[in-house]
């Protein structure tokens, strides 16, 4: 741990302390929304369109109303008067972006299979579900825009009254002439097309909502499995026409989000409106197969990337065209997801000319939105796959090609061609460490030996060097991207009369271990044990101001706000200590939670004693307010840029197409580490999720827009049995973007691992002529690629 982080040595920061959250989670003591006991609560069941695209000709709830236990049932038309506005999208990326109105219940047209068309409310969940089956909805099926590229042609329109499926086109072309010239002058050019399949986020806990009205106070308590209680409160109020102050949002224990709970969902609004209308608590718990359709999907892009390079492989220009699948509607930040990757398609390489264009397209499928990494995994995939392809074309080792193109360690802060300032980095060091850990040269030898022997189990080695921008986000930069809110975070740190510490944060964790990390920071600042630091979060009643958790921001932004507040608390305590010890404040030193007078070490006073004095307020310096507490809001001046190199080693069975991931090395640099054990955990989970995209996962639709992968028997999420032990390494390059020097690690594993694994499989088969295999790399796809390459002359290696 760098000395810059903490005053005083020998603290807990930097140690592998076990997570404080785990005992409650593992013992079942933690309460999720579904666990909450709410007397008198009604259960809501949602009737969903079985058609991807249909005109709704009638909704008849009369039979449902006659079913046992049913209290109410409503169509979209019945509830139309409940909404002050359509559901929110806060990121209109261009001035002319199209966004069809999206209401919690569709009224005239269902636009994806799973689109909500009616609700039933009953005394028990079983009664509600039975009655939902009795709602008679008349549909007239319409042609569906399913395939992304087909939808881009406007052959079928996703919304009946829209002129086109095109939502927007967003461009980042700083110097078109430079790009044109670079491609004209290039010794080598490369053009590749990659498909980012749709992913179903699959958090361990599906969504859940319970809204408890307090009719006499006119207040609503909204319990929701959400990442964004604060943003949700504001937007629920605006959409349902309720003053913000009358809504309290509580996110109890939340079982994972990965971005899928970074949204304002129809069911949250429906429970709120029904609680208002019926004056009773209304709750809804999402089922797993329902979640596959009703919760956002991730990815969903077709990428075209071109590189222009010198004969020695120095890349001079990168040109990218994306088609991005919005799904049927704009959810909270749907249009912005590709834009989060737009600046990073040149990866870790020093490139002088850059052109990026993205067109967002509506389809008759579940809306897409942010999913772990959001835009950055897609960008990293495209450039890292393309770098491997360029290496093959030039017959250069892929590690060597990367070295020739890295942004040098001496170039930071580095202003990129896309306009970002990369805060700090040392890409070559991370690559070197990873190659050493994996014993790269020995692997290449083994690979070549197997090829020579004609083995049916071929070896492949895949590299992925990544950089991401996270620590969302500097508010001024968000303004320039048309995002409607800021990127700051708030914190209050309070030392209670007993010397225990209470922290209030506007961030809202879902299992990451933030409470552990935050309390470690505060513990070292204030000389207490982490167990003595209580962190209040995820309840707008106790933490009224915040911007919540996403984009690897909760340490670099949220944690920094906490650290700053703790520093301010110390400064207040210093004034009080000076008053008490009758010395000048600048003569005091703080160590282990105790102020001592420089040069007179026996003259001391502890923070705990000062906290009590500040509480009793019997003898405070002139003008000092009682209580030992301080608040801070941190708005970063820049993003943070974590980076690293991942190496995947696979065995490919050429007879069956089966891919076995046999080794995995990850060297990540997330700046200073508060708790390396938590960093390990985030990297582990991230790798698994990225391997999922590479080899196992994919939302499959049939041509009429039916989701074929709505159960875990069809949508394959890898388990521990599919993964090797991971070898983790780390380099530490502190970030200058925040005083903690931290960068964020929540998304890195997902960003890096997908291209590493696919590069490894293609590497294993490249000598047979295989250049690309579409994700997920199922055994059948791999087998067919081998067979196709065998029949195609000109496999060039």
């Amino acid at each position, binding site marked *: 741990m760098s000395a810059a982080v903490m005053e005083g040595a020998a603290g807990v920061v930097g140690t592998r302390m076990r997570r404080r959250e785990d005992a409650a989670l593992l013992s079942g003591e933690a309460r999720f929304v579904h666990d909450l006991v709410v007397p008198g609560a009604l259960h809501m069941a949602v009737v969903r369109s079985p058609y991807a695209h249909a005109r709704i000709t009638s909704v008849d709830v009369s039979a449902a109303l006659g079913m046992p236990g049913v209290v109410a049932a409503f169509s979209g038309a019945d509830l139309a008067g409940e909404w002050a506005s359509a559901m929110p999208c806060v990121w209109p990326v261009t001035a002319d972006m199209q966004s069809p109105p999206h209401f919690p219940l569709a009224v005239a047209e269902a636009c994806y299979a799973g689109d909500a068309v009616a609700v039933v409310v009953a005394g028990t*969940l*079983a009664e509600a*579900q*039975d009655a939902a089956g009795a709602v008679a909805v008349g549909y007239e099926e319409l042609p569906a825009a399913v395939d992304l590229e087909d939808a881009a042609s406007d052959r079928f329109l996703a919304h009946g009254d829209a002129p086109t499926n095109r939502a927007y086109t967003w461009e980042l072309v700083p110097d078109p002439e430079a790009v044109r010239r670079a491609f004209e002058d290039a010794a080598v050019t490369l053009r590749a097309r990659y498909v980012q399949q749709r992913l179903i986020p699959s958090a361990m806990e599906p969504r859940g909502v319970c809204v408890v009205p307090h009719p006499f106070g006119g207040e609503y308590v909204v319990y929701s499995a959400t990442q964004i209680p604060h943003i949700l409160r504001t937007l629920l109020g605006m959409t349902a026409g309720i003053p913000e102050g009358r809504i309290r949002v509580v996110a109890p224990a939340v079982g994972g989000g990965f971005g899928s709970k970074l949204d304002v969902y129809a069911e949250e609004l429906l429970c709120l409106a029904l609680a208002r209308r019926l004056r009773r608590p209304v709750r809804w718990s999402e*089922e*797993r*197969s329902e979640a596959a359709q009703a919760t956002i999907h991730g990815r969903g892009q077709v990428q075209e990337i071109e590189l222009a390079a010198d004969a020695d492989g120095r890349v001079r220009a990168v040109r990218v065209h994306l088609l991005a699948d919005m799904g049927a509607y704009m959810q909270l930040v749907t249009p912005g997801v590709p834009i989060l990757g737009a600046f990073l398609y040149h990866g870790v390489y020093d490139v002088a000319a850059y052109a990026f264009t993205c067109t967002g397209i509506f389809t008759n499928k579940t809306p897409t939105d942010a999913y772990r990494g959001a835009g950055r995994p897609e960008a990293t995939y495209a450039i890292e796959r393309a770098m491997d392809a360029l290496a093959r074309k030039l017959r250069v080792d892929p590690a060597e090609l990367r070295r020739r193109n890295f942004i040098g360690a001496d170039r930071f802060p580095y202003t990129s061609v896309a306009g970002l300032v990369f805060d700090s980095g040392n890409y070559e060091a991370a690559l070197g460490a990873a190659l050493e850990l994996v014993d790269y040269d020995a692997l290449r030898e083994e690979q070549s030996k197997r090829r020579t022997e004609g083995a049916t189990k071929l070896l492949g080695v895949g590299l992925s060097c990544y950089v991401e921008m996270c620590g969302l986000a500097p508010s001024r930069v968000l303004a320039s991207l048309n995002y409607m809110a800021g990127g700051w975070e708030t914190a209050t740190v309070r030392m209670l009369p007993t010397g225990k510490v209470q922290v209030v944060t506007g961030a809202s964790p879902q299992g990451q271990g933030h409470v552990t990390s935050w309390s470690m920071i505060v513990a070292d600042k204030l000389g207490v044990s982490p167990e003595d630091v209580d962190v209040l979060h995820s309840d707008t009643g106790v933490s009224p101001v915040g911007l919540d958790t996403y984009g690897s921001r909760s340490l670099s932004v949220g944690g920094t706000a906490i650290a700053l507040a703790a520093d301010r608390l110390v400064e207040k305590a210093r004034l009080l200590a000076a008053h008490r010890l009758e010395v000048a404040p600048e003569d005091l030193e703080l160590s282990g939670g105790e102020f001592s007078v420089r040069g007179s070490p026996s003259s001391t006073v502890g923070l705990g004693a000062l906290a009590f004095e500040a509480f009793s307020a019997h003898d405070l310096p002139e003008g000092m307010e009682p209580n030992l507490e301080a608040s801070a809001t941190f708005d970063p001046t820049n993003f943070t840029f974590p980076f690293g190199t991942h190496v995947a080693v696979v065995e490919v069975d050429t*007879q*069956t197409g*089966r891919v076995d991931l046999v080794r995995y090395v990850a060297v990540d640099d997330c700046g200073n580490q508060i708790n390396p054990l938590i960093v390990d955990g985030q990297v582990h989970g991230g790798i698994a999720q990225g391997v999922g995209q590479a080899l*196992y996962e994919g939302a*499959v639709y049939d041509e009429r827009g039916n989701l*074929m*992968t709505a159960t875990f*028997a*069809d949508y*394959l999420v*890898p*388990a521990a*049995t*599919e993964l090797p032990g991971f070898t983790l390494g780390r380099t530490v390059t502190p970030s200058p973007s925040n005083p903690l020097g931290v960068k964020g690690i929540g998304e890195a594993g997902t960003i890096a691992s997908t291209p590493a694994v696919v590069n490894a499989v293609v590497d294993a088969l490249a000598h047979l002529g295989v250049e690309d295999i579409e994700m997920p790399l*199922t*055994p*059948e796809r791999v*087998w*067919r690629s081998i067979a196709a390459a065998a029949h195609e002359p000109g496999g060039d290696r």
Partner: protein
Amino acid sequence: MIPASFEYRRAGSVQEALGWLAEDPDSTKLLAGGHSLLPLMKLRLASPSVLVDVGRVPGLSYVRDGGDHVAIGALTRHRDLETSQVARAQVPLLAHVAGQVGDPQVRHRGTIGGSLAHGDPASDLPAAVLALDGTMVIDGPHGTREVASSDFFKGFLETALEPEEMLTEIRVRKAPSGWAFQKFNRRAQDWAIVGVAAVVDGDARVALVNMGSTTVRARGVEAALASGASASEAAARAAEGLDPPSDLQGSADYRRHLATVLVRRALEEATATRG
């Protein structure tokens, strides 16, 4: 994921279960481990009005050496079969296959009788029983009858069991060596895309998982082997006469190809381990 409402009865004996079955055989289902039936009910693909739970009927969970065969009680859970000393010594194929079903939670609940009676062509145990030339012992209102495993699997989720009957015991030929099981799936806990159970002990019996609407014997392979073909020559006939399914995990063509690869591997392995 909430099943339609149903009546639940817990049987104390086979006779009691058979009596309840006879009352309304078409809308009554037997419940053993529940790992096939309950998911169907939760998805409302099955809605029996009465569930007769036979899980606690005594005396139907055993693995016994029957001299020339091994007898397995229908309520024997996969985990008990996997770890049975008798099974491991006399029919290691069956013990091994029981250890390949689903995941540990499934194996601690699911039963061999339930798996066979369900008649799912994607299940592993039916192939093992076919390759071991098994016999099904079935109790019904008119007494006990025996059905050869080769006559038991009739169609997709359809067996020779009548609605008022109950499978009580499975008998398999001893095969202490010369066996192999190849299961090809994407994740450890998944059903096989294709699976192969092979026993080579004088004659050869090869059964295939997920290569048609029922578990099937690879008759072409067996005939080829009987006429002296090599493993790879015989394996080339693995998909002969079969009509495998196409689904998200693999097309019919891919399954045909996999069958040839996996049968060859199974035959080579079985031959190599023959004692």
